[in-house]
């Protein structure tokens, strides 16, 4: 609960994904206004928190694909009461994990050598950039996940029903959930 407002604190996190799940969240459209009355939005790409705060509910979009994601999701897990894998990339790896079918070197080579006209350096894992993980993983392979909200992306209606269930203290219904 937020100390000031007494409302549950909702965070969203974006790892290796396209942000489509966040966009679908925004597709709640005017329902966002009602939602704002029920939760305190904290860390999110839509708000202005950078250091991940304590959160009651966190929606995690995207797969765990690099070392930054890995350390970030661990922090998020520590500071979150109910963690939700949000969308197919987080739940299954989805398209992001298709790179697991290739060697990392080949993937980097295609992007930064074959498709470049000037090659000054190949990025990956120097002091500033995170290293790519050998294997893109769904979130639950890395940290414990409490609920799953699959879909690419999950529709706004699905997200809404899911959040309402959670906020009303019901076990979220899984009957509408679907990959893809």
């Amino acid at each position, binding site marked *: 609960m937020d100390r000031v407002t007494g409302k549950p604190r909702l965070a969203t996190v*974006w*790892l*290796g994904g*396209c*942000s*489509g*799940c*966040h*966009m*679908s969240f*925004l*597709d709640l*459209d*005017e329902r*966002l*206004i009602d939602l704002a009355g029920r939760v*305190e*939005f904290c860390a999110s*790409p*839509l*708000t*202005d*928190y*950078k*250091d991940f705060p304590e959160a009651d509910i966190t929606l995690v979009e*995207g797969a765990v*694909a*690099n070392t*930054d994601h890995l350390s970030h999701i661990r922090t998020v897990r520590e500071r979150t009461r109910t963690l939700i894998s949000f969308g197919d990339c987080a739940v299954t790896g*989805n*398209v*992001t994990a*298709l*790179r697991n*079918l*290739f060697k990392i070197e080949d*993937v*980097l080579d*295609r*992007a*930064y050598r074959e*498709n*470049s*006209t*000037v*090659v*000054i*350096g*190949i*990025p*990956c894992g120097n*002091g*500033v*950039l*995170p290293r*790519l993980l050998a294997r893109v993983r769904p979130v639950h392979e890395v940290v414990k996940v409490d609920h799953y909200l699959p879909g*690419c*992306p999950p*529709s*706004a209606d699905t997200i809404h029903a899911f959040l309402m269930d959670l906020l009303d203290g019901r076990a979220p219904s899984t009957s509408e959930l679907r990959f893809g």
Partner: protein
Amino acid sequence: MGERIVIHPVTRIEGHAKISINVDDAGEVSSAQFHVTEFRGFEKLCEGRPFYEMPGLMSRVCGICPVSHVLASSKAGDRLLGVEVPSAAVKQRRLVNYAQLLQSHALSFFHLSAPDLLLGMDSAPEKRNIFGVLERDPDFARRGIRLRQFGQRIIELAGGKRIHPAWGVPGGVLHSIGAAGRDEILTWIPEALESMDVAISRLKPLLDSLPQEIENMGNFPTLFLATVTPEGDLEYYDGVIRIVDAEGNTVADGLDPMRYATFLGEASEEWSYVKFPYYKPLGYPGGKYRVGPLARLNVARSAGTPRADREMREFKQRSQGAVCQSFHYHLARLIEMLHSIERIQELMEDPEILSEHIRAKAMLNRLEGIGSCEAPRGTLFHHYHVDSDGLMKKANLLIATAQNNLAMNMAVEQTARRFVTPRSIEEGMLNRVEAAIRCFDPCLSCSTHAIGQMPLIIELRNHAGDLLHRLERS
């Protein structure tokens, strides 16, 4: 011994980014870099897949502008088939492209920029979001939400799904918007136009209050690149490429997007996952150019729709030659939204929009195809090679945000030099560095928390990368 300041994370541009500021022995900013830390490898992971699946697969590059990728991909597919896309299908594609421009720009302006612009850069961070705007000015916020909803609704009605509609296919589109869809869209138009009037008239006076930021954050000469009609008007779906310089002179015109590789090059640096496209005749890194709303308005002669034309004429008067202040991306965005709504209305009134002749079918007829269009953030190219069975051999994607990469780095460096004094770092200084990035709207929110307080982790590092000092805002 030089030092390096790392800003991490810069909030959200296609995932995560960092900014590092290098400090020389004299304690002055020597250079600054903008590092994109996200990489997913679409150019490789598509390998072996049938090209017919590319629009659906490539739309997953971005959830904000999936339609752009669907279109560029479908157009590359059109080339592989070697067909002429039926004109009704072209209209469907144009419609959805305008809808996408509308929703993406609405997101950028109302959801992400407006909080800073309307609430002020020093307002409380908890309030500095669309919900804060809702409290302050519910009507304005609701208009923003509804404008985005309008764009998304068109995509849903035409494409079947708001995000990642797999409706564009090589040769055309899967379905048309239909009469019911058209009728619904027409009912939205008056409100949408009214909302644009409200937004534009709110933004203009705000701009006048930020002269420092406008002049010093990403204000420099570069080339501007955009697609235009052969006559030189705004064009988002299919046209020729024109390049103008900072003075507004045309550097190149009538370039065929299919031949992009002859005039655009891409450089790889080990410190960013986003590459550095450049204009080949000027070489790397000299060939900096900007794309996106600002570039399009600088490049195009006129909009071709009455309301947008009025605004565009006024916009062009903000500067001699091209408008070089990156801050004016915001206003350019609003003008493009207005233009999109006008175009959507035109398309809705065109009887051909209901035609069911929307798909040309053919076998594979070429082994290489390029598709391009104007995405919300700039010109987008998809370049595919397939084998004789139509399986992808390789792809090259030249994405709008990347094309602004050199300019964004320049903006970062300019802002750092102007505002950062390494001896006594204040958060406000670094925030401005970040804000420079956000003008470009590199995909998500970065655009707009432009100015004002941002929670940050600031790391001061020396040359060897050792952590010297860490500053964290709670």
